């Protein structure tokens, strides 16, 4: 019994494709935070993407194949954690529905889904983390990415942890719960509409007066960073995990040390 209690839970980190390719620091930040929450972390090599590009394009065949791969690679862990509400929601809520005609896989997908969590809500809701050891002087604002907010109920958790970051002043973003216009393939299929939506978002971000914009999803962050930079705004953009893990030495998204 004592051994059972002392055993640190094993977490499989689902890195997400955008973190893997564009922002590795977020992956390392996630590892650091999960370890700080008393877990051991492993990163299965057999992972690529959660399958949303195919799923949201109506390509269920490819999505199922990807989902089987992810489930096989991760189902042995106590928890599966992703630094993204969007990918987390996909793994947790949408995989099972792909196997409505396959009871065995459906059961596996459901058991797997029950273990999946988005990073920040995992830290607070599952591991009971109340504060972090981090310092980030300056004002930040936070955008609630849609899938995290509406599929997984992530709203207060990041604000709670950000509140414990030394020197950080959180200013609320007006319409923080309104979509940034990214929408996965939407932003390239309907660029004009996506642009109109992100323009409204950057207007509010600038109006907030914050020096840094944070959110929990790389897709939204790359979209908003790209727009802010095209508009020559001075707001920096980072994934919330970088700040919570005190790993902000790396330049903000889309910037270099010189810029």
């Amino acid at each position: 019994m004592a051994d059972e209690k002392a055993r640190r839970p094993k977490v499989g980190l689902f890195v997400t494709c955008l973190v893997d390719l564009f922002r590795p620091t977020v992956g390392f930040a996630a590892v650091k935070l999960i370890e700080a929450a008393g877990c051991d972390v492993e990163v299965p090599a057999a992972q690529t993407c959660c399958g949303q590009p195919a799923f949201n394009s109506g390509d269920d065949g490819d999505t199922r194949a990807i989902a089987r791969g992810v489930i096989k690679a991760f189902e042995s862990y106590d928890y599966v954690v992703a630094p993204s509400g969007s990918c987390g929601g996909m793994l947790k809520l949408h995989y099972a529905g792909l196997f409505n005609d396959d009871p065995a896989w459906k059961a596996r997908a459901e058991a797997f889904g029950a273990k999946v969590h988005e990073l920040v809500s995992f830290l607070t809701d599952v591991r009971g983390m109340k504060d972090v050891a981090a310092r980030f002087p300056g004002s930040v604002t936070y955008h609630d990415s849609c899938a995290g907010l509406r599929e997984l109920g992530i709203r207060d958790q990041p604000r709670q942890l950000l509140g414990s970051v030394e020197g950080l002043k959180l200013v609320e973003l007006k319409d923080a719960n309104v979509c940034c216009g990214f929408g996965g393939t939407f932003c390239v299929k309907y660029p004009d509409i996506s642009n109109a939506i992100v323009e409204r978002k950057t207007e509010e971000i600038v109006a907030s007066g914050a020096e840094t914009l944070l959110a929990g999803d790389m897709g939204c962050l790359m979209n908003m960073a790209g727009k802010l930079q095209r508009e020559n705004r001075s707001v920096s953009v980072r994934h919330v995990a970088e700040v919570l893990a005190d790993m902000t030495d790396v330049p903000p998204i889309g910037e270099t040390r010189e810029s």
Partner: protein
Amino acid sequence: MEITSNTFKKNAREALADPALQRAMSHVRSGFIDKRARAAAALPEFDEIRDTGRDIKNHTLAHLDLYLEAYEDRVRSAGGEVHYAETAESALETVLGICRKANAKTVTKGKSMIAEEIGLNEYLEEHGIEPVETDLGEYIIQLRHEGPSHIIAPAVHLNKDQVEESFRAAHTDLPADRDLSEPTSLLNEARGILRERFLAADVGITGANFLVAETGTSVIVTNEGNGDLTQILPRVHIVVASIEKIVPTLNDVSQIMRLLARSATGQDLSVYTTFSTGPRRPDDPDGPDEYHVVILDNGRSEMLGSEFKEALRCIRCGACMNHCPVYQAVGGHAYGWVYPGPIGAVLDPQLIGIEKAGNLPNASTFCGRCEEVCPMRIPLPKMMRHWREKEFERHLSPATARYGIGLWAFFARRPRLYQWATRWAMRVLANGAIGKGRYTSLPLAGGWTKYRDFPSPEGDGRTFQEQWAARRKSA
């Protein structure tokens, strides 16, 4: 109504470049959303009533044949007539037949989305009968020969000065120097003109928010009272409604009514709620001599057995479009047919065909706000995705998109190959942006870089997986 859903992208571009439209649409954002939020917050049991509303509709849809039969019986015993129309054409012919029998020259109309769906105005005009819209918004767009851009606020795409312009162009017998600068002066002018039309009409046509099986009653809610004058004054009242408007009892009506106006306009109740059961009885003070209900199917019974069944719970409050970032950006006309916004993106492909309406379920970020506010808890994003699946299955999605997804999926299904390929790709991408951190243009990503910079991969482009493997090795 001419269908332009197939040119949605072009429609959207034009809408985004239209300053008057953009000015009008900013009112949707500020008006509807805050009012709905306040109304919902003021009713602690609001979410519970949403569950009740969903359950009432689910139960009704599961036994729709029985309730339709019961409804028909009650209407007949109250002295009214029920006409079933499987298609839009058959509904039009039925309405025309009733009008002809009544020797109608003009008909007044209360606001009805079903009438828009079947194209009733054009049809009546073609057959020598003049339809007069009596809802202010509908009256305005009728003068302008436009379709509605919103299901409860048909003229929401217009500004006051555009309405003034239309009134001056249409009401030429009024003094040219009259003052129409205030919204109330526009309202009064429309009211004066419509008063005459109400009195002259031979037939009144309304829609229905509910058809009550228990009593054979049709129910409409309005804020202007125009529906009452439309149905009480003429000799003949025709209700046009679709099959899913049926609810079992008056008690069910009262439950769903608690959701409808709150979700639509943020009112507790609309100003007028009118119950009609059959024609005028001998001791009634007023009412029509004849009462007809035309019940339209138009593809809905096909939805009953499909993955789109839940969309039939819709009570047409408009909350989904009010909260939709895409609708807010481009307005309702860009959708190219009668029903815009998220519910339109689900209904239109069923009603006019996915070949024509294929863009609509694709033009969504899946932000989920529509489902969040839907009083009937319709899973709208899920249904839009079902349409995308059908398009994919039937090879209707664009070849480039299919090819792109296919190529990407080929790699995404093979982790080793994927990691090998992405290592090289990210290095190249990082190298190309040394010292800048981002791209202002990028081949194959023009949709992105037209409007935004594209962040280059962090550092030297080494992927997380690559760095993680290296650390494990050295550890």
